[in-house]
């Protein structure tokens, strides 16, 4: 399903996407196209992208081609999803230790839509961190790694 969404293959393109997306939630999915969980997430993203077209711009980023961002965003598991609004990073409290990105795939399309809506509304109210509306059951649990410890 990844071919339905625009892809960013270099740091410059990612920069451009972050800078130029205005008044919309920018969704950056870091991962690999052939990864099974990535395929699962891409399916959800591509199917909801048209519904969310006024609220969100969704891009797929290849982890291997943008090492700087992979490093900067501290992506150790794929797929990881990072949200931006007007060039500002949006944090979400998922109930997991990492607020900066959503690791893994959403369980349903509705989960993703809800999350985007909450982020959009929070950003419009000037919030840099929002509370995730997703049921904690549906959020995949991963261990947080800290500098190879």
């Amino acid at each position, binding site marked *: 399903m990844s071919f339905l969404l625009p892809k960013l293959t270099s*740091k*410059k393109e990612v*920069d451009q996407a*972050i*800078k*130029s*997306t*205005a*008044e919309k939630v920018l969704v950056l999915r870091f991962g690999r196209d052939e990864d099974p969980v990535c395929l699962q997430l891409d399916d959800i993203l591509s199917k909801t992208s048209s519904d969310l077209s006024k609220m969100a711009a969704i891009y797929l980023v290849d982890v291997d081609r943008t090492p*700087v961002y992979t*490093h*900067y*965003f*501290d992506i150790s598991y794929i797929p990881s999803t*990072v949200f*931006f*609004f*007007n*060039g*500002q*990073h*949006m*944090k979400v409290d998922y109930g997991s*230790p*990492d*607020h*900066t990105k959503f690791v893994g795939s959403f369980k349903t399309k509705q989960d993703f839509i809800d999350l985007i809506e909450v982020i959009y509304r*929070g*950003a*419009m*109210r*000037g*919030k*840099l961190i929002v509370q995730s509306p997703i049921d904690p059951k549906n959020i995949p649990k991963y261990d*947080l790694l*800290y*500098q190879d410890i």
Partner: protein
Amino acid sequence: MRAACGPAGAPNCCARSQLLRALFPAHAHTAAAALAGYISEYRCWLGALVRREPGQGLAQPQMGLQWRLPAAGGRWDRWARSAPEGSEVAEWRKTSCASRLPTPGPMAPAQRCPLCRQTFFCGRGHVYSRKHQRQLKAALERLLPQVEAARKAIRAAQVERYVPEHERRCWCLCCGCDVRKHLSHGNLTVLHGGLLEHLARFSHFYWKLETVVTVFYQLCPEAETQTPEHKKATNRFWWENKAEFQMKEKFLISPQDYARFKKSMVKGLDTYEEKEDEVIKEMAAQIREVEHSRQELVRSVLEPQAVPDPEDGSSALGSWKGTNSLVASTSQQPSSVDLPPTPELDWMETGQPLTFIGHQDTPGIGNIHSGATPPWMVQDEEHSSVNQQIGPSYEEFLKEKEKQKLKKLPPDRVGANFDHSSSTSVGWLPSFGRVWNNGRRWQSRHQFKTEAAARNKQQSHKEKKPSVS
């Protein structure tokens, strides 16, 4: 006993009073006086009642009695009311029938006096008041000089060239209307014509009945049937405001006077035309003179060029000076007298050798003498090639619409001031709050950069180490 005595009581009583009167004449006098007083009081009251409600079924009181009654709210009544407390008049008013008079009714209807610019409730009385008379006098004195000036113009009507100042208007008190002071037609103005015309104007109605009136005139020429509109209004004004009768004549102009004015106006027009002709002739003479002197000047300037002088400039200057002493003498004399005459005209021949760069005469493009477009008005070729549209374009409109849309969004949203179009270097990183970093978000970027620098150093160190070992 009582029943028998009852019917007989009345004659008894009457007889008794007769007896009493015979016995005590003084007592009888007081009784009669009391009776008479009672009757008169009663009649007074009756009269007042009748005054208050006339035609209510009550009989009119006798005439002889009514004249004594002071009218309620009338002059005497007011006088009595205004009497100071404790005075005789006040006592009289309290005790006598006057106290039973009804209080004065509603005030006299409101009347606005246009002269005093005030509303009065005392009816016609106001006209006689000192204030009104003073106002009237002032108003008439304001109008009088203008009328007097107009009256003077009857004998000798002045005609002048029209200037906007002749649009002045004056207010006719009697007719209550604005009147043009002067009569102007085209570029001519008859001074005071408008006011005179108004003062002697016949009524509109009169003009309509012109034929009838002419017939009437023929029948009795002496009859004073001409009642001009203004005269009527003046009469009414004088009557209403009780102005001085002698003054009235000053504000009226008889038809005969007006006819005289018309005649003098014709005369004035003639004299004006004559004067204008004279002025035109004078101007023509002046123009001719100027033209003549100009032609002379031109001729004198052209002559030395037409005849090339073999000798040096002095003789040329002399001839020039001779022919044109009239105009050029003042400007040329000091130089010709003080300086040696030679260097004036031959500087072209004997001057320094200058480089000639050729005649700047491109056919098609004119120069400053032929009225070409000046260079600063000519568009540059680079700019002219770009077809710049003047005025708003559709793209700009869309941009503006976007801006308007953005204005509706909350101003404190995330990244409201973020510059989306800024150009950034390759090393740019977005603001990102990292998991392990505390502090502000931009600090994580700096930390990342320092980390990256340290890592690079380490890597280079590691790469170097094996080569060393």
